[in-house]
């Protein structure tokens, strides 16, 4: 079995880091967006939160 993505990047792992405050930058701070916040986009109406 060859993994195409690292186990550390799996959703459960990433969310664990997010909920324990381990994400880089301010996740949802519109004034100070961090590198991990780009998935916080309102996708249907397409305006960018950060």
């Amino acid at each position, binding site marked *: *079995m*060859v*993994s*195409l*993505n*690292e*186990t550390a*990047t*799996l*959703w*459960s792992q*990433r*969310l*664990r880091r*997010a*909920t324990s405050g381990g994400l880089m930058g301010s*996740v*949802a*701070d*519109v*004034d100070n967006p961090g590198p*991990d*916040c*780009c*998935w*916080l*986009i*309102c*996708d*249907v*109406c*397409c*305006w*960018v*939160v950060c």
Partner: protein
Amino acid sequence: MYLTPRATIHRLSPDRSLLINSLSGAVDIVDDELRAKLLELGLGRRPALSDQETKSLIGRSYLFPDWGRERAAFLEIYQACQQVAARRPLQFVVCPTYTCNLACSYCFQSDQLRSRRQAMTQAHVPLLFQAIERIAETQPDRKRQLVLFGGEPLLPATETVVETLLRRAGEKGYAVQLVTNGTHLARFVSLFHLYEGAVKGAQITLDGPQPVHDVRRRWRDGRGSFEDVVTGIEACFEHGIAVNLRVNLDSHNLPHLEAFAALLQERGWIGQPGFRCQLAPVTDHLGTSGYPFLMTETQLVEPVLDLWERRPELRRVLDFRLFRVLHHLTSVIEDQGRSATMPRFHYCEACRGDLYTFGPEGLVYVCTESIGDRGNAVGRYAPRFRLSRKKLTRWHGRSVVTLTECQECSIATFCGGGCAYAALKRYGTPMRAICDDAQSVVQAYLSRLRSRYRQDARMTAMG
């Protein structure tokens, strides 16, 4: 052991298969021996797995001791997503009017709605801000964001009320985003300057090079709007307002994407602070538009992937995250999970409880596509504030965790259960899934991946 129903297996070559897990986001390649064991597990049998196989499959969340643990893992990820999402600003979408000065060939809003002459008055503004505070009072720590939407929010007729909205938003410390066709932006930019700091960015639609855009996005008298929009975009850059360019994509403007990317380069927009350009497939959730150039996401897979193979640098210029399913797949499979894509438990923010829309008639909606559809309003803010908890619960309770059809679906967290408003119109309730073409997007992408894999294998063999 229990194999999650969120796993699917797809043949890549005669002896290799791709394993995709929509519970954990894992993607793996397995040989035929393990493939056969996984198929047996799927049938509830107990094949002999080696210790290493068992360890890998558990570590990647394919295998669980039983159904209950698998369900608990699914719910744990959902709860974590909810927890992270709660850090986002609450969004209050304000439609100063439903009127629009353009007559775009594919608009999802009915002509009847766009022709309504109703506009918000000064008297609506304090009531609207009171309603925002009432709605947000249970979540005092969350930031509030105002989004000006329409119709077209930036019209000469709305200038006074827009100025009042900006002033009040500035006083309250709310960030403001604009969703505009850009035709009157240049006129409004000086106004934004007065309330500097409040307006964070503008989503402006430009559908291609001038001859293409002008056919699609015309003023009501038939003139093209390209020149006006470009003037507005460049006025934003001059005043430091971030521009999120939106390209509504279908078979009419698809052949002109490369020319459009060249235009962005020539005008020096790429690299402007905060600039991004998003491709958005034109959708018709209710199936009522009769627009002849619509393409499903499945139909867009092939030409878009062709373009990226031919011009890989355009992938950085033309953001395609609004291709909901394809973006998930490519970001997981091709970016080795480095991209920030996460599972989609809700199709859109209408069901997440993060967004409320205020119409000029005094009504409150949760879905921006349902504005003007009075029967589907969830309350009102003028003349008096009132929300229907019963109606809100129908929307906010909808996710792949609660939709019956999504319980065993192998791609539910790639698609989010589909459009709630479409479900409401089609079935009379948002609590039904709208599967649309999510499965066929997966198949179209995998078919492409399969041929690429075979090609790579041939190249390797040729050495």
